[in-house]
């Protein structure tokens, strides 16, 4: 019955971007966490920041298939924009600070992406990695201005909307970060389900075919990279605002690698992978580093090896496989 198949095919694309009930779950958990762990909100805010950072990487790595080990560059630029604005110019307004961080990161991504995104795979990996180290080194050369590895002294962030001051337990920060994440998650979700997002997926699936259907591949990648960097810039800006400090450590390779591990743990190219991955990674890091301050990375590495061996598509891929197995055994 071709007519019937026709209708269901129509519905498939039309229904794909609709909100499903289960999508409320991560947000309900985030709200519940506020009431269950009221004195761990400083940590909670850091988790949310990593979720946003991982989400930004998912757009380029998970959807467009851009392999980058330099995403800390944009996190760092966002962090330093806010830090320097506050410490050197005495400007500490949070919301416009986020916008400034996003803008600086986006400009840097647009310019570097224009050159670097002509390459793919391992070459791109090394190039993005080196670009980040170069940025870090520039910060180190001008350490009178940037504070170098000692950090920027005297960052003061103004109260949120001029009204809400920051408490010792980080509750204001948590709510602030959650609000920003909600807004930006909505933006990423719109993009992912748009025709542009479909084109990004096409580039990941088969770039030769994209060229052959007339897609301006390079241009699309630069746009995606720029948007992603703006989001990473916001997460970096939030990092400085919530901690009221920033050192050149924000550009560390560990951060670029860490956010990639988060995405692999949770599952790439599936929006919510960033949530699951960031929560697992941050809690693992928190507990393991208390257990063994020196060797905690061994634990993270061990989990990563397990994931790569047994759950290639991350936690969500594993869940999908399990539910498929269950469905089969039931029928």
């Amino acid at each position, binding site marked *: 019955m*071709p007519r019937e*198949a026709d209708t269901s095919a129509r519905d498939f*694309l039309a229904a794909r971007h609709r909100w499903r009930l289960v999508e409320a779950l991560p947000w309900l958990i985030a709200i519940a966490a506020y009431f269950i762990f009221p004195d761990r909100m400083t940590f909670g805010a850091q988790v949310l920041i990593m979720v946003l950072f991982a989400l930004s990487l998912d757009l380029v790595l998970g959807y467009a298939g851009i392999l980058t080990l330099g995403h800390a560059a944009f996190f760092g630029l966002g962090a330093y924009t806010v830090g320097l604005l506050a410490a050197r110019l005495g400007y500490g307004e949070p919301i416009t600070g986020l916008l400034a961080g996003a803008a600086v990161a986006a400009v840097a991504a647009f310019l570097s992406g224009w050159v670097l995104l002509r390459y793919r795979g391992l070459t791109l990996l090394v190039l993005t990695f080196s670009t980040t180290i170069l940025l870090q080194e520039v910060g180190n050369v001008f350490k009178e201005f940037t504070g170098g590895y000692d950090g920027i002294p005297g960052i003061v962030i103004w109260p949120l909307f001029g009204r809400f001051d920051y408490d010792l337990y980080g509750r204001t920060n948590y709510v602030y970060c959650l609000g920003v994440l909600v807004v930006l998650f909505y933006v990423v979700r719109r993009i992912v389900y*748009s025709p*542009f997002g*479909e084109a990004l997926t096409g580039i990941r699936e088969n770039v030769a*075919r994209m*060229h052959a*259907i007339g*897609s301006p591949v390079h241009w699309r990648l630069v746009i995606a990279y720029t948007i992603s960097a703006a989001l990473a810039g916001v997460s970096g800006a939030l990092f400085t605002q919530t901690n009221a400090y920033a050192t050149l450590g924000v550009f560390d390779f560990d951060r670029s690698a860490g956010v990639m591990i988060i995405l692999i743990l949770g599952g790439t190219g599936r929006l919510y992978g960033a949530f699951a991955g960031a929560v697992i990674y941050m809690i693992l890091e928190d507990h393991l580093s208390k257990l063994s301050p020196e060797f905690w990375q061994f634990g993270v590495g061990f989990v990563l090896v397990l994931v790569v061996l047994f759950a290639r598509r991350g936690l969500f891929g594993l869940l999908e496989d399990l539910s498929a197995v269950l469905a089969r055994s039931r029928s």
Partner: protein
Amino acid sequence: MTAALEVRNLHKSFGALQVARDIDLTLERGARHALIGPNGAGKTTLVNLITGVLRPSAGRVLLAGEDITRLSQAARTRRGIARTFQINQLFRGLTVLENVYLAVAERTRACDRLWRPAGAERAVIEEALAHLDALRLTDDALKLVRELPYGRLRLVEIAIALALKPKVLLLDEPAAGVPSSESHLILDVIGALDPDIAILIIEHDMDVVFRFAKRITVLVQGAVLTEGAPAEIAADERVRAVYLGEEARHG
């Protein structure tokens, strides 16, 4: 009238290796032209030169009189050159519908939009479904490409190319590897294509070539050996020698 596609003195070498030598080829509007020749003659290389996957070392490619030699592959596609690949180049992790949707969406510039849901582009979806319907792929619309049998995949290749609404269509062995029980479906589709589209087909099956083509170009070692109507080619001693020699070597 200017030809749909013109290739003039096209030359391509990798170092000392000459893979295309002084190739001239003209496709009139609505042409049904076959490109034949033994393995390694440079047939796919010629397609790659015409579509812009490779840059020629010398010579020119004209599309409806316009010089496109220096244009990128994507720019040529947007001007009306589409191709199918000898080895499937599909979005394997996406559904058949999405494969064709992307072609339509790129052609109509819908892919420039990043705030509207892909599913809200009704016109794109309807057109993609129409292309699938024309190739009797409707029932497979929601299947993932990687789950389809090979013969169907060759049809998806063609559906994508047609979704680009080309003026010139290059078919690189469209029925290669398809069991004969299914290949007639592909040949029917090719036979029923819009008579305005200029088509260049690379094919090894001589039955197909003689049934379909009005003109045939024979390529040997990167150069045009001869060109003519099917009857002339069939009678040409040199062509026979090339093919018989080839068969003798394989046999």
